[in-house]
């Protein structure tokens, strides 16, 4: 076997694992959010702001968003690879996807930290 120069050995296994780990993070965060809504069915602005004010909540929320973005990357990479046979089109879509996901990441960070000051 020739070793890949790009170091992409076991990339499929790594993606498989990332997809499952991020899925777990997403479900756990969603359950926390659902329980917040359960105990606070009609949150006011101050309730809502108070929930997001501790740094650890913001860090966990950003962790959740990063998980969503990683999960989207693996999922959409699979969808593109399965259905888009033309290499150049697929490559463009993947690059566009990376830029879109990065934009979402910076936007989320700005939402969680930028606006409070």
């Amino acid at each position: 076997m020739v070793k890949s120069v790009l170091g992409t050995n076991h990339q499929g296994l790594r993606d498989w694992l990332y997809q499952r780990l991020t899925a777990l993070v997403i479900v756990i965060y969603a359950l926390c959010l659902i329980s917040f809504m359960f105990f606070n069915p009609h949150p006011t602005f101050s309730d809502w702001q108070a929930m997001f004010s501790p740094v650890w909540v913001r860090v966990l929320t950003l962790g959740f968003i990063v998980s969503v973005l990683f999960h989207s990357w693996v999922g959409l990479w699979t969808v593109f690879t399965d259905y888009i046979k033309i290499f150049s089109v697929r490559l463009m879509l993947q690059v566009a996807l990376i830029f879109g996901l990065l934009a979402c990441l910076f936007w989320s960070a700005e939402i969680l930290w930028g606006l409070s000051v």
Partner: protein
Amino acid sequence: MNKQRPKNLNLLTIRFPLPAIVSILHRISGIILFLSLPFMLWALETSLHSEEQFNALKDRLATPCFKFITWACLSAFLFHVVTGIRHLLMDLDIGVSLQGGRKSAALSLLAAFILVILAGVYVW
């Protein structure tokens, strides 16, 4: 090759098995969730911006059009989670037989259907 072999290209008589339908719906719901990311981030940004914007968002989300969008996003999420759990169980060697796959597909469809109805009740 035998030219008289039976052919069936009538797409109306070719039916996907249930696990295939659940699988493609898992993909479609995932794509919908990805496309709804900007909407959700916009809602989060607006809700945390100020009290006026929070209340304006609340009023806007109470309109039928936005209720439908919220319900659609929630439904896609619930469906994706339920069928995703089915995938995780199959990773644990649960329901990997043909019959098991059909059964879990039917079960996850039913569970997702109930959750989607409950989400609708919650939103409206």
